[in-house]
């Protein structure tokens, strides 16, 4: 099935990659960064291996910035951005990119909305024309609103309503966050989505879509000087919008309780659990803490060499799956999570107990320098492999810059990872992963008393 306009969820996401960056690149391919007079930030990542360029525009707005009661407007609006301007009617961007053999798409998360095209390098100027034009020039009519709202409602039915796991994740996330809008699903609650209208869309557009709230990322077979000239000719002509107020969302209060959310569903053949805590992210953490949390997730459950996998899957055979994840790239404090699925005759309770024991062991006994070095080596290797695809690089720079981090943050990341000590890692585990404040979701078969 072709999926267009994929929607990424943030929150307790295991889905989002940790912020990655590259080792120092060769000089001729150095990343360039500059700001146009109207406030548009531009990043150029040269990569001359294939005659392809990835052009991405990131807006610093996501579902967590939506007005109360308008859940889903950020994502719905992303769809509406394809409905045409006075200069380029609906379908013309699609047709142009298609004729080039390129591809285009867009996505919305809790923190960002991004639009991108992958095309031959000589089409870059044309892509910039389209994106610069629709940054301020979108024409919205009631007619296009209605049909497209049906499409996003259908998208919600397909992604969420048809999946027990998705329904549970949605309500689990709503429980994990007591006050922050990360608790509201990016696609929106059905009853609020049904009410979204043209006025909502127009005011959202007016407020957030402007060059001074956007980041342009161009990666691929181009030179920074060319990109700068083209960007000034297109985006440079778009008027700066009003200054946006500081990006302050409602924040999380101290949590004093644990909680659990359970869904029984006839489609579930094997039980599973996911447990999460809201922890600082790269933008909000004390120096070194986010890096330590990143490595902690790797050591606990990031690969087949992780403690969960080796101890709970391989050695004891209690679990079929066991892992951990950290959403360190989120703008505000976000999820650190662990998850497990039992194997054979073992129960979910046994898996939880075994994973909790591993977590306790790490908090109590810490880790060796050797174990930490191996995890760091896997990160280093991941960075080199990430450079193999220009879309990865555009993603890394775009997501960081659109969520309050800088090019320096990205480029200094390997050094900051290298500096993490075993003691720091143990300290963040102890500080943040307190069983007394964990929120857990259980996905269970219909049988009563299943655990």
């Amino acid at each position, binding site marked *: 099935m072709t999926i267009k306009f994929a929607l990424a969820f943030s929150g307790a996401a295991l889905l989002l990659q940790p912020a990655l960056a590259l080792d120092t690149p060769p000089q001729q391919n150095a990343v360039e960064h500059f700001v146009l007079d109207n406030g548009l930030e531009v990043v150029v990542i040269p990569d001359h291996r294939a005659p392809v360029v990835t052009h991405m525009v990131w807006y610093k707005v996501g579902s967590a910035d939506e007005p109360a009661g308008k859940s889903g407007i950020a994502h719905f609006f992303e769809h509406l951005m394809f409905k045409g301007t006075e200069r380029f009617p609906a379908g013309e961007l699609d047709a142009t990119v*298609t004729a*080039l053999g390129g591809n285009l798409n867009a996505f919305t998360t809790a923190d960002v909305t991004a639009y991108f095209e992958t095309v031959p390098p000589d089409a870059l100027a044309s892509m910039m024309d389209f994106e610069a034009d629709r940054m301020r020039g979108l024409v919205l009519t009631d007619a296009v609103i209605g049909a497209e709202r049906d499409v996003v409602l259908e998208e919600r039915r397909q992604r969420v309503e048809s999946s027990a796991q998705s329904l549970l994740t949605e309500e689990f996330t709503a429980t994990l966050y007591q006050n922050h809008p990360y608790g509201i699903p990016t696609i929106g609650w059905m009853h609020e989505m049904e009410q979204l209208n043209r006025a909502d869309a127009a005011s959202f557009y007016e407020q957030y879509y402007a060059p001074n709230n956007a980041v342009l990322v161009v990666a691929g077979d181009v030179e920074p000087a060319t990109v700068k000239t083209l960007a000034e000719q297109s985006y440079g002509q778009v008027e700066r919008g009003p200054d946006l107020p500081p990006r302050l969302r409602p924040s999380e209060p101290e949590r004093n309780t644990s909680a659990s959310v359970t869904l029984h569903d006839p489609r579930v053949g094997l039980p599973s659990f996911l447990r999460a805590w809201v922890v600082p992210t790269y933008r909000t953490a004390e120096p070194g803490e986010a890096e330590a949390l990143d490595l902690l997730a790797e050591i606990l459950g990031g690969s087949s060499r992780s403690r969960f996998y080796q101890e709970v899957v391989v050695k004891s055979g209690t679990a079929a799956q066991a892992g951990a994840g950290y959403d360190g790239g989120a703008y505000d404090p976000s999820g650190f999570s662990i998850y497990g699925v039992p194997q054979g005759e073992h129960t979910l309770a046994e898996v939880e107990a075994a994973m909790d024991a591993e977590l306790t062991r790490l908090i109590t006994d810490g880790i060796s320098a050797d174990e930490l070095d*191996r995890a760091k080596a896997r990160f280093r290797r991941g960075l080199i492999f990430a450079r*193999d695809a220009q879309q990865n690089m555009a993603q890394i720079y775009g997501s960081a810059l659109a969520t309050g981090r800088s090019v320096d943050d990205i480029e200094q990341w390997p050094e900051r990872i290298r500096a993490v000590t075993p003691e720091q890692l143990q300290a963040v585990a102890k500080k943040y992963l307190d069983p007394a404040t964990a929120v857990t979701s259980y996905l269970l078969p219909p049988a009563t008393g299943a655990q």
Partner: protein
Amino acid sequence: MTTLPLLRRALAVVATSFALLLTALPAQAEVVFQDITSPQGIDAWLVEDYAVPIITIRFAFEGGTTQDPAGKEGLTSLLTALFDEGAGTLDSESFQIALDDAGAEMGFIADADALYGSMRMLAEQRDEAVALLKLAIEAPRFDQNPIDRMRAQLVSGITAAAQNPNTTAQRQWATALYGEHPYARRSEGTLQTLASLTADDLRQLHQRQFARQKLHVGIVGAIDATDAAAMLDTLFGTLPDAPDLTTIADIDPQLGQDLHVPYELPQTSIFMAYPSLERDDPDYLTAYLMTQILGGDNFGSRLTTEVREERGLTYGISASLNNMAHSQALVIATATRADRAAETLAVIKDVVATMAEDGPDEDELAAAKKYLIGSYPINELSSSSAIANTLVGLQLRDLGIDYLARRPDLINAVTVDDIKAMAQRLLSVEPTILQMGPAPKP
């Protein structure tokens, strides 16, 4: 065209190459496919690229899950899970630690027609990584403990999916189209067949399939042709010459059936199978263009326009050609709200009938041609892994190392009348339709 830096070796390394000048602008990047043959006579295609200090190798042994003996379904799936679970003198844990230390990522996977292996390694640790891949290819151990663990994970996967209506739908779909043919067998196995699998079964399957004759290799990255040729001999030089494969019959999918999997869901999924063509049929690209216009992977296709854009009936709809080694089909797939499933199906049938009767117009065909020509480098050459995948795919389909250079002319030669005739041929046939969702109200 590239020539090789010739080093003194027992046998000279032979190379021919084709530069793909992928766009009109002369200063732009190019990707050069080289055809190399190792001193021991093993062929591969190579793309040298030093921009990132990594090397990616991908290879395919023809065979795949259709080689599972009857009653041993799931054997290939279990086999592919065990290559990093111990080889040579290294047990599972020692092997995985060594692989981690070597900074390499290794993977094995199978489809119905081939078993694929791949490794992505850092150029600076190439020798360590290749030594481990060689062990995995030549001497997997199949120790009982990892067999039991991986079997348990496959069993978990089957148990987890057993209550999912998609599982039921997939079973019905495969059985309806392929009957008793191996394509209808369960590649993941069943609880019964998995329980019966032994280390000897795995060894036999490995020996039957891992041979040099039906091996296809692609190498991409920071390595020259001489070193790549030496790597081929290291990895595959000791394998037997010919595989011992079970012959798989060609089969036409059984069309004209109407299937319904009842399930109380808010959406109804719809799948429709029509006939298609062999990948090496001279008219294949005509069918491919027709499918692209009907429901290809870009906005503006007829199905997307009518079903999504005009009516908001779906989030996605596609038509694609399902090419397997022994069976072909054109498949339309979508999901729509349950109470409008009948309307959606009627719209799809109408779009299909119009295409069969009238064919495309000139503008649609021109746009589809441009898309298919331009998208190839963007989709198929976007990373080392994508390039390696393309190199192996072209070899498996026997399309030739110059295929990418010839492909635009082949596409441009197709006319509106060709497409119209093809649409009549493929789309006038009654399809097999499967709907999964709530039973229609009487």
